[in-house]
């Protein structure tokens, strides 16, 4: 009796002629096929692995900043670079640190072989220690990059979703506004807005951050609008409506989660771009205050030493390398992701 109650035995897939299903491994089962394709693509490409390692190293550097470059005990803000005097002339790497000397971390004597602080990477004008600035600048870079990315995506998400879902005059209006923001020469617009915001917020990371957010959300809005317009026509949306879901529920629970996936991936990889733009604004003089641990800010000291750059090369080379590696790390990952996501290249060799 029991046997007749059991469901009719379905033929095992492997036994069906002409149908072959590959074995799913645990990771693919866990994160789903789309994400699995991404993860596998990123971890099999030597370029993106390099990128991942670089980004990981920066994360570690940011996390261990107080160990790598201990802040002064008396100073309040660890993001202000300690200065060894006030002389405008930069000093080369290896110069002995005389004033405002931080505590000696335990790794220091073993690695450097000295029992007192020297300026490992030299000092910039005003005797700001470049090594300290680069280490703590990693935190500034990551913070700025993540904040700008997160907020631009949210703005793009709201504008794109509302525009695509409601359509009609609202769509027209929002897209015209998006076009207006896109008609700005980006750098000039961001430069102007942060110059305006400096008297309001004071010098610091906020004027440039807000300026980059203001002129950075448009791509996401347009992309998401396109994605939603195609997702809207799918059967599962109709199904959700039939069940009686209202606008908000359909939009938030069904359409956006399906449309947002490529945008989130690409946006997270633009952290590098934003940090470079932020550094550019700092370099042009509308970013952080002088002496703040920010890579662009340190490079900007070089503007006074153009004629003797061959002597004072360390002002641009060290923070420049930090910026380059940071941008490179994110771009290498982003590059691989873009190729994986590009439907035209799907199924191509490699």
């Amino acid at each position, binding site marked *: 009796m029991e046997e007749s109650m059991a469901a009719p035995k379905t033929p095992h897939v492997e036994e069906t002629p002409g149908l072959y299903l590959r074995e799913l491994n645990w990771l693919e089962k866990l994160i789903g096929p789309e994400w699995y394709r991404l993860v596998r693509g990123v971890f099999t490409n030597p370029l993106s692995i390099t990128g991942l390692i670089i980004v990981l190293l920066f994360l570690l550097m940011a996390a261990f900043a107080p160990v790598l470059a201990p802040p002064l005990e008396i100073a309040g803000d660890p993001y202000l670079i300690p200065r060894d005097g006030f002389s405008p002339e930069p000093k080369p790497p290896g110069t002995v640190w005389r004033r405002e000397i931080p505590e000696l971390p335990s790794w220091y004597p073993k690695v450097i072989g000295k029992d007192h602080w020297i300026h490992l990477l030299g000092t910039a004008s005003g005797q700001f220690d470049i090594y300290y600035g680069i280490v703590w600048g990693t935190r500034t870079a990551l913070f700025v990059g993540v904040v700008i990315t997160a907020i631009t995506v949210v703005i793009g998400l709201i504008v794109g979703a509302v525009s695509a879902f409601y359509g009609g005059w609202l769509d027209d209006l929002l897209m015209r506004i998006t076009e207006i923001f896109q008609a700005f020469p980006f750098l000039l617009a961001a430069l102007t807005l942060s110059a305006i915001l400096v008297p309001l917020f004071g010098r610091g990371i906020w004027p440039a951050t807000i300026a980059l957010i203001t002129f950075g959300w448009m791509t996401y809005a347009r992309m998401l609008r396109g994605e939603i317009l195609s997702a809207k026509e799918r059967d599962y949306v109709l199904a959700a409506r039939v069940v009686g879901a209202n606008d908000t529920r359909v939009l938030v629970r069904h359409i956006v989660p399906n449309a947002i996936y490529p945008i989130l991936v690409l946006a997270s990889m633009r952290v590098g771009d934003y940090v470079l733009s932020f550094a550019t604004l700092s370099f042009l003089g509308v970013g952080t205050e002088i002496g703040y641990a920010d890579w662009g800010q340190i490079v900007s000291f070089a503007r006074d030493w153009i004629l003797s*750059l061959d002597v004072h090369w360390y002002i641009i*080379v060290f923070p420049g390398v930090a910026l380059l590696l940071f941008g490179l790390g994110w771009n290498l990952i982003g590059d691989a992701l873009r190729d994986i996501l590009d439907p035209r290249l799907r199924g191509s060799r*490699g």
Partner: protein
Amino acid sequence: MTAYIVRRLLQLPITMLGVTVLIFAMLQLLTPVERSALYVQSIPHNEGAIDALIRKYGLDRPFYEQYWRWLVGHKDAVTGEIEGGVLRGDLGFSRTGRQMVKDLIAQRLPATVELALWSAFPIIGGGIILGVIAAINHNRFLDQAIRVFATLGWSFPTFVFGLLVLLIFYAKLQWFPPGRLSDQVNVIVMSPEFHRYTYMNTIDGLLNLRFDVFWDALRHLILPIITLSYVIWARILRVTRSSMLETLRQDYITTARSKGLTERVVIYRHAFRNALIPVVTIGGLMVVSLLNGVVVTEVIFNYPGMGSAAARAAGSLDALAVLGFVLFGGVVLIAANLVVDVLYAFIDPRIRYT
């Protein structure tokens, strides 16, 4: 097609109007007193003067009134003359440039156009050649090498790369100087015998048959050109590469190969020409990248073009000059995109705008 172009042209002033409204809105973040400082060179010492300024320029008026005034001009209560008005071609006075914004743009434009024109050759040529080579060698060593080279360029902030270039070729090797002309050549250019046709030194040098001027101008241009090219290449290379890759996967390429044509003929006769169609879009991309790149490049190389003037105006809040430059940049951007779209439809018969 004509209808499409006309519609796009009609949209242009509306977009530009929106752009200026937005900049004006941004300026409203400042108080009237702060805004009054935008119009004078030094801060007046008595408060009455500030009030007079605020009243003269209507800075305490509502937003729309100030905007209207900037747009169409304002009748001076005392003299009865109409002052200002962008629509009348008056962009106002630039505090940092110490001249009318209109004249500042006109004066700085040739230098920037010269730089952009010279940069366009290596940017387009190099970008397309490298992109095609990368695509042909897809996923092989050459492809990876070119992509690393390009990604490095993309990851370089323009100012860091420009400073490194200066460090090597100017401070260390003394090969190429910053600036636009050497002093002694500048004397020649300023002399009455030297006829200035275009105000672009390289072209004027050739037209006057003064090859020393041409060479000196070019020597000053080389470092900015290298900087701009390297940081822009990656974008153009990417478009060419993926377009070429896509073309190589088309059926007609397989057909050509199966006919027994050599790989050379397949690539250059069949694939390359068709792959170039989407590459036309890089024209717009290049203008965008140049508009951004030129600002930083000119600042670093002390090159007296629009970019450096704009950076200085923006940094010291010379509002009227910034409005002028942004307006100008916006028109260039929109015009470039329009030209690209029209060109695209012209080249690719599959595209029809309605």
